[in-house]
């Protein structure tokens, strides 16, 4: 008898819909509206590489020791340097980083003795060509500039 009444009054359906509407509460919305709402990634996030510059002098922190290039499993870092005849020290000239082959393992930043190379929280790395994925020194120092959308 109760079974019949349950069927007549669609009790099971209502119970099911209760669960459905329970998840409609704003508290349970997990979707991020991506270009408008940018996710805040963790502090340790391993994203786009950056070559740090000394904020006081504007000079690069990199000492051209080549350790990052040796540590990289994909061998995608090429460090160019030349010896300054006056100070007898190696100075950085070029620095290329092939982001298209990078797997963001973080071994290069571990290897860096002066914290010059760092993987940052920037994660928008798309570009229109493969050449655009090969970053030179200027790009590494300035960081990627993803398009910002204003709605």
């Amino acid at each position: 008898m109760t079974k019949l009444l349950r069927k007549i009054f669609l009790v099971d359906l209502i119970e099911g819909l209760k669960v459905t509407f329970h998840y409609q509460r704003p508290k349970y919305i997990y979707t991020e509206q991506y270009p408008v709402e940018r996710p805040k990634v963790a502090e340790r996030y391993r994203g786009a590489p950056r070559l740090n510059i000394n904020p006081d002098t504007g000079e690069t922190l990199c000492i051209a020791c080549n350790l990052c290039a040796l540590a990289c499993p994909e061998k995608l870092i090429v460090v160019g340097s030349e010896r300054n005849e006056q100070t007898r020290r190696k100075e950085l000239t070029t620095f290329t980083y092939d982001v298209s082959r990078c797997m963001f393992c973080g071994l290069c930043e571990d290897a860096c003795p002066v914290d010059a190379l760092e993987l940052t929280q920037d994660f928008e790395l798309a570009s229109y060509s493969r050449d655009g994925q090969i970053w030179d020194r200027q790009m590494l120092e300035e960081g990627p500039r993803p398009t910002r959308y204003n709605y």
Partner: protein
Amino acid sequence: MGPQHPSTHGVLRVILKLDGEKVLGTECVVGYLHRGVEKIGENRTYQQFAPYVDRMDYCAAVSNGLGYCLAVEKLLNTEAPPRAQAVRVILTELNRIASHLLWLGTHALDVGAITPLFYVMREREEILNIFEKYCGARLTTHAFRIGGLLYGLYEGFERDVKAVCDLMPPKIDEYEELLTGNRIWIGRMKRVGVLTPEDCKAYGVTGPMLRAAGVKWDLRKAQPYSGYEKYEFEIPTGAHGDTYDRYLVRMEEMRQAVRIIRQAVEGIPEGPITAKIPKVIKPPVGEAYVSIEAPKGELGYYIVSDGSLQPYRLRVRPPSFVNLQALDRMARGALVADVVAIIGTIDIVLGEVDR
């Protein structure tokens, strides 16, 4: 069937011999995702190879990293300090939950239940957030280094882990409420893809599939590593060795994983996080095999060292590849629709099958 078929969990191609809807025989064509990981290992130094192992079983990258690090540590004859071991256990068990959640979602999706996929992704997100905060990556984590850990715990790690521990059991109950008693689910699962304990041993099947057949074998208990002997947990087993039992075993394993994490996070010992290892890893001549209980089964790393900077030979024993070999045994005599359920129940990751 495949390699583009969505239910093959990647790029698996299965040649089916059919009589109408009945499967007379199957043949797997693997290798679409072959990247030659073992060969890459021979051309990289020991530290450099560590990120590559994450890319084999990408659903359980942390477990892969643990197995590799343990193998190299065995070669070097060192052991990670207690604090590192406890953190390793926490992260691998979190990864076990994440891997089983993804398995549940995709497996349910394969047999026609769409809701669980969204549910499990929601909870998996919480676990991946912990990984992101801890080591900076969500999927291919590269969380462990040879000899211990690189990253110390971030502030609030314990709180986050405990929150997941509190979150998971009611959510697992919720999934079970959806699926366990569901008539369609039972109809698709029961007596499908039966493997007897003898079959499992003959094919070398390990992990939840072996336990569902009723064999109480778990490497965490049989050959404890990374301090697993300190924690209390049960080995869930099934009785019939069918797809339904494998589902129940995995659900119970998630609960047990929560239990292990609770015990581990309560008493993370203080101390250093890395053992004393040289900066340039150059193990002595020798060989080492270490196997761990990955979410999918026994994951083994066999490394031969010739005393140089790079391994002489590196071999991986992937659980997915070995378990996949039992597909023919399970699918013979079943219907085509059951093949989808059976592939799902093996819980393969093609990155690991093809390597």
